[in-house]
Structures are given as C-alpha cells and as structure tokens.
C-alpha cells in the first residue's frame, strides 16, 4: 500500500543482470573448469573469494544498513568454520597419524575415548544444525545484552572486539578440546567425497555460488521491505524510530543474528575449501579486514561488499606474492584513502563522477567541489 508507493520496485533489468552473473558463476565457470579452460587452482581461489563475499555481506548488513560496526564477524565466521571442521575431523576416521577413530590432537592430549560433545558431529546434518545454532545463540545472547542496555556506536564496536578477543583466547587453549593453537586440518572426506579431488572442489564452488546468490537475493528483498526501511531508519536516527513506537533493540537483535548466521555459513563453506581452521582466523584484525572489503566495495549497497571482497582479495593474492613486505601498508593505506576520499567505495565512483560533472557545469571556475571535510550522515 503506502509502502509499495514509497519504495521503487526492483527493476527487471537488475534481476536480469543478477541472473546472468549467477548463471555465469554457478554453471559457466564450473563447466569451463571441467573443460580445462579454467584451472582447478582458480576455481578454488574463487570459491574462497565467494566465502569472503558472504562475510563482507554480513558486515555490510550490520554496518551499511543498520549502522552497527561489528568487529565480531570474524568470530561468527570461524565458529561456522569450526562446526564444519568438527564434522570434517570426524570424517578422517582412522586415517590420522595415530590410526585411532578420533582426532589426532585428542590422542596427543591423552584422551582414550572421544569426548561426548564430539560424538554427534559424525553426522553431517547435526554439524550443519550446530553451525547455525552455535553462532546464532552466541549472537542472540550478546546482542540481547548489548542492545538492551543501549550499547551503540563505537561502544558496540569495542565490545564486539572484546568478545572476539575473549573467544580467541579460549580457542587457543588446549583444554577447550578444539585443537588449540593448531586448530583443525588434514581433512580427507566430505559427505563421502575426497576433499582434495578437483571434482569436490568444483562442487564446493558451485554450492558457495548458489548460497551467495540466495543470500544476495534474500537480502535484496529484505532491505527493500518495510522491515528494511525501519532498519535503515535505525541507522539514520535511532531515537526517532524509538519515538515512533518501534522497538529498535529487537530490530537490531534480529539483524545481528541474521548477519551472524550469514557469516557462519560463509565460514562453514570456507573451511573445506582451504583445508584448515585455527584461532588466528578469530581475531579483530580479520573482522576489520572484512570491514575494509565492504568499505572499498561500497557500503550500504549489497553488491558493494561482494565487489570489495573479490577485488581486495585478488589484490592481496597478487601483492603478497609481488611485494610481501608492502602488503600491509597497501591495505592500511587503502583503508585511509577509502575512508577519507571514497566514502561510497568502488560502487559509488560512477555516482560521484556524475555528481561532480553536474556541479561543475554551472560554476566552472570553482574547481574544489568535493569537500572531504563535509560531514557525512551521522555515523554514530
């Protein structure tokens, strides 16, 4: 009704482009790989990029759309990864170094029998349920506590940072029985397929592409719905939303849990493709890196994080080989430049250029039009 009058429907052209890109990712690329035109390495690399894109989307859903800068997304990403990792560890069976039907590190720690909480992870469906439940519950409890006491802005960032830090300390411990420092690795099978064969890698890539497309389409609809509008209103002026009678904490909590789940799914798809998960994935730096992808791609759009995740990681793959010493400086510098000069990221460049041209026309004598000092929308 009023809603449909106020919101422009998503253009057919956009759906068409989405469908073409999705078709290319899900069908064409794997076929090219099968035909030998695209190497197995490339497929594996792109599978990783798409997982990163899922993580970036989850960051953007919180930061770009709701104004919550969470530094804990890497925690949810690795929690998902760990749940998948536990399943994969069980699938090694007796092929480990100690030839026992339990993970090597447990044998090493002197366990005679599998600890109880490990046993059900030999079922794939159980692992997948836990992959959603564990990060979901962590996000729900933390979000409930945080939003109830109206923690917002930078305080939310600092608290999520502390949460991630605490969790990584916990996972570094051996008596957590989650592999400690070394985490999980040396995987062999997933659902009966050899995890190292090109076919499995292709399959994982296809699954990742399908999940990413689904998440993208789902969120595109969600952010356009009445719910999405409230969500963006929370970002722009939370007090007005509260005074209009909406319970903003519940909106934020819902979005926080959803983005935790998206991050977790990304992590669960990531682990079988890279073959390792350890607590170093669970740091604030990793969360912040995902924030860079989002910022570089363009926050507040859904395509931005995907573009950002893929382009920054492609740049990383190149730079860490060509200039290993300078990569962190490039990354840091990129961050500063994007924040200062490109608040809308790569996706926003065409818009900025056309704005600039429009403003330039009436008063051609004033060259300094884009003022970096101009306050953007209130972020806190």
């Amino acid at each position, binding site marked *: 009704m009023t809603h449909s009058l106020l919101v422009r429907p998503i253009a057919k052209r956009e759906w068409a482009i989405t469908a073409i890109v999705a078709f290319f990712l899900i069908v064409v690329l794997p076929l090219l790989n099968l035909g030998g035109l695209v190497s197995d390495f490339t497929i594996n690399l792109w599978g990783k990029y798409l997982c990163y894109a899922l993580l970036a989307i989850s960051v953007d859903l919180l930061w770009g759309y709701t104004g919550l800068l969470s530094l804990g997304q890497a925690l949810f990403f690795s929690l998902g990864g760990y749940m998948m990792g536990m399943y994969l560890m069980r699938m090694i069976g007796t092929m480990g170094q100690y030839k026992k039907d339990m993970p090597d590190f447990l044998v090493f720690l002197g366990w005679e029998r599998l600890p109880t909480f490990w046993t059900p992870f030999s079922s794939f469906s159980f692992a997948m349920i836990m992959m959603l439940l564990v990060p979901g519950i962590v996000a729900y409890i933390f979000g409930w506590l945080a939003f109830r006491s109206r923690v917002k802005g930078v305080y939310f960032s600092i608290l999520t940072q502390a949460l991630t830090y605490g969790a990584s300390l916990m996972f570094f411990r051996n008596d957590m029985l989650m592999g400690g420092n070394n985490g999980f690795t040396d995987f062999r099978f997933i659902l009966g397929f050899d995890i190292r064969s090109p076919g499995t890698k292709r399959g994982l890539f296809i699954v990742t592409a399908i999940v990413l497309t689904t998440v993208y389409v789902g969120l595109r609809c969600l952010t356009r719905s009445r719910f999405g509008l409230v969500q963006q209103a929370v970002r722009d002026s939370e007090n007005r939303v509260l005074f209009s009678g909406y319970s903003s904490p519940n909106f934020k909590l819902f979005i926080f849990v959803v983005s935790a789940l998206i991050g977790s799914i990304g992590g669960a798809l990531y682990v079988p493709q890279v073959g390792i998960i350890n607590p170093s994935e669970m740091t604030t730096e990793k969360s912040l890196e995902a924030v860079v992808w989002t910022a570089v791609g363009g926050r507040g759009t859904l395509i931005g994080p995907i573009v950002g995740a893929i382009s920054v990681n492609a740049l990383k793959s190149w730079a860490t080989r060509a200039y290993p010493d300078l990569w962190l400086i490039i990354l840091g510098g990129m961050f500063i430049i994007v924040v*200062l000069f490109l608040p809308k990221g790569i996706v926003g460049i065409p818009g900025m250029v056309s704005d600039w041209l429009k403003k330039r026309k009436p008063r051609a004598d004033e060259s300094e039009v884009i003022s970096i000092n101009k306050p953007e929308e209130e972020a806190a």
Partner: protein
Amino acid sequence: MNKAWFFSIMAALSFSSLSWAQEAKSVRAIIAEAVVLTEDSDAQVKLVNSLTGMTDPELEPLLDAWKGGSIYLVEGADDKYIAVTLAGDPDATKKETALRLDTKEPLKDAQGTVVRVAPARAEIAETDSSIRRAMKSLLDLSKLTAPNAKDRMLAITQMGMERDVAKLPILEERLKVETDSSVKRAIQEAIALTQLRSPDKAVRLAGCTSLAEIHPLSAKDSLESVVKEALKAGDKELLIAAKKALEAVEAHRSIVNFLGTLFRGLSLGSVLLVVAIGLAITFGLMGVINMAHGELIAVGAYTTYVVQCLFAEGLALSPFGMKLSLPGMNASGWLYEMYFVIALPMAFIMAALVGLALERGVIRFLYRRPLESLLATWGVSLVLQQLFRLVFGSNNVQVNSPSWLSDNWTINDVIFGWNRVFVIGFAILIVFGTWALLSKTPLGLLIRAVMQNRNMAACLGVRTERVNMMTFGFGSGLAGLAGAFLSQIGNVGPSLGQNYIVDAFMTVVVGGVGSLIGTVASAIGIGVVDQSLQQILGNPVLGKILVLGAIILFLQWRPAGLFATKTRSLES
C-alpha cells in the same frame, strides 16, 4: 670415622684462633706441609682442620688445586717430597718450571738450577675421601664466616638444602655469633629443617616447634613428609607438632599470597592505567577512536630502544634496503644506566610528534564521524606496524633494564620488584600531571572548553583546531611514555601495541568515557580482579576471559561506565 673428623673440626673451631696466633703460619705453608704427608692421612686431615678460621682468599683455590690434581710432588735432596705447582711454560720436551707451593719461588736443586718437570710424568699429590671431606667442611665453614653477609647467606642456603644432620652443631655455633638478622633467620630455618631429618625424636620435635615459630615457606614439603612418617609410625606427639608447624606455614603462605596478589594487581592496574590514560584523553575527552594508540605505545618503546642503543654501541638499521647506521656513545657504568632517564622524555616527544602528524593528516577530517575514525586509524595502525617490521625487523628487540629497576625487595617473603614499584609511582605521577594540566593550566581550561562545546568555544575566540592538535599530541605523548615503561617489563616488538589496545579501550569504557578518575578506578579494579582470578584459578588465560565477560556484564548494570558524565542531551 665420621664422628672422629667431626669432633676434630669442633676442636679446631674452638681453638683455631689460638693455634693460629701461636704458629702464624700462612695458609700456603700449612697446605704445602699437608700435601707432602702422603703416608699419614690422619695427620693431613689434622693439618687441613687446623686451617679453620683463616680467612685467606687463597684458601679455596689452593684446596681446589689439590683436589683437582694440579699440585705435584717432587723428590727433594733429602728424599723428602716437596709440593710444587707448574708454571705452565712448556718447552720442547714439555717440561715446565716447578714452583714451590709454600713460597711460590722456582724450585732449585742442590746445584742451584731450576727444576723443570713434565706434567705427564710428575707424581700428582693424591687426596683420599677423608681429606676431601675435611676440605669440604672447612670450605663450608669458611664461607659461613665470610665477612660479607650476602656470601654467608648463600653458604647457609646451600647448607640448609643439604639437610645434613652432621652439620647441625656448626650451624648452631654460627647462630650464636651471627649478628645480621636476615642471616640469623636463614640459619634458624636451616637448623630447623635439618633437625627434621634427625633420627632423634626430641630433636625433630624441636625442629617442628621452631618451624612453627618462623614458618618459612620452604618447609612445606619436609613437614608433609614428617607428617606422613609420623602417621606411619603412630607417633602422636610428633604428628601434632608437625601439623601445627604446617598450619603456621600455610597461614603464612596465604598472607604472602594475598599481599603478593594485591601488589601484582596494583602494578598491573598501574600498567593498564599508564596505557589507558592517553586513550582517556584522545577517546574520552575528544571522542576520537584511535586504533593506532597501540602503535603510539610501540613508538615510545622503540624510542627507548634507540636511545639505549645510542648510549651503547650504536645502531644499524636497514629500512627499505637503505643502510643507516647511528654511532653510539659507548657509555658504560652509571652513564649507561641513565639512558632510561633520557629515553622517557624522548619517548613522549616522538609519540607526540607521530600523534600530531596523525591528527593533521587523518583525524581532523573525521571528528564528526567516530566510526570512520576507527577505520582510518586502524589503517594507520597497520601501516605503522609494517613500518616497525621494515625498520627494526619482525623479531623482538632487546631492551635492557637499568640496574636500578631490575632488583627487588623481599619483605617477609613478599617480593616487591623495583620495576613494578616504579610503575606504580610512575602511574601516580602521570595521573597527577594530567590532572594538573587539565584543571590548573590555561591550556587545560581551553581543552575542557573545546571538549564541552566546540562551537561555543570557537565563537568565544578559542582556536579549536589548535587545541585539538595539542590535546591529541598530549594524549599520544602519554602513550609514548607508556611504551617506554612497557619496554622495561615486557617484549618490544612490532605487535606490542596490539597486546594492550583491547585492555586499554576496556579500561576507558568501564571507567566512564571522559572521566579521569573513572579511568584510574577501573584500571586498578581490573588489575586487582585479574590478578586475583589468576591466583584463584591458577590460569592466566581463563582469568582474562572471565574479566572480559565480567566487563560485558558490568556494562549491563552501568552502561556509561563507573563515573558517567551526566548530560541532558539525547544523543550522547
């Protein structure tokens, strides 16, 4: 045999000063005399014992030489042996000059030519077990009477660890004449611990009683084994005495642990405070989230390192493939020890300069966008970390503590490290200085005005841009000071700042943003709670996790921190 030589020691102990005065022979002469009595080991023992009470520095090396086989016997003109050492100047036939042991003069034969001996052929002066034992107790004893209290302490600790019942009388003898109170205590402890080993029940009981009085921490294991033995033997009297002593020791231990934990908590709190106080200014007062704060700390630490190297041998760096070598002053002694005094202001200045550059280059564009200042400064922090790696290498660098920071006081078994005492004092000084600057100086007035209402201050003619710069520079300089201090108690490496940044933010948030007193309270609170949890749980990591959890829960109760700044505005 054992008893025999022991009594001879006792006799020697009582009369030694007398006999020494009569004969007035040098240690050298007596040993030379003893060495040649190869037939009569009893006489040798007697002579060795007669050395008791002599405080000649040559005593120990000479006895060691005898034991170690570097004293040789040469047959003299009258078929008697003469003790010699070799000068260590081998000629073509590998013969060395023989030196008389008693006079150190070269040994001459009847014709007056110097005797030369090949060590491989010469007869070594042997020692048997009774002589060696006599030597050992002689040396122990001579150490017990050393003029320096520290040396005596060392000797007593060693003797106490032996728990040799035979040495009890020696210790008791010493106890009577000992004047230094801490050495006296150590002797009492050694005696009591040794008494527990005695086969005589009355002696053991006495040991338990005196242990209950002096309750040393080291007595726990021995007392426990006595309890076990007493249980086995069904000796009730001994059991009660030992248990009583054990209780006294445990009570003392819990007091020591409590005080130690309190002290460690205070010093950890001070470290947190020093680290967080700069942040309390840039974040608390200015509202800038500076994720590069940790790297400013590292700047301070690396400055300390560079200053230290300049005081010593200098420094060779190779940033970006360039060779850069700084000459050093090659200072030593007290001048070198003073490097830290120079390093402190240098660390402040360097970090303040980096902070100023950061403020001018990045942060001034982002005052109204705190979330974005978080991101941009994180970018800066990555760049700085990598620069540290490129300039100083990715390994930790070695910063030596000056000696006036590396000792400790031990008061009643509680250890107070000087560096920790120093950080507490240092933190008090910094807090006082910051408070004075903010509330007693014109600059402080301007800072507070700008932080309360930037526009109003600008309208009244305050140059807010400049005040921002100064404030940020000051906050950064404080981070540099923190770094100089952290270099004394931990590792200095590229990721030094990352280890403290989470803690620092937590401290400021818990204390209440914008409140200096809140930062002080929360730093000390977190420090003490952290150390107590470590003590209780016996696991540092678990303690840290619990502290983080507790902070999240605490913010439920007081979302704005301990000392919240009251405001009527809706958007804080």
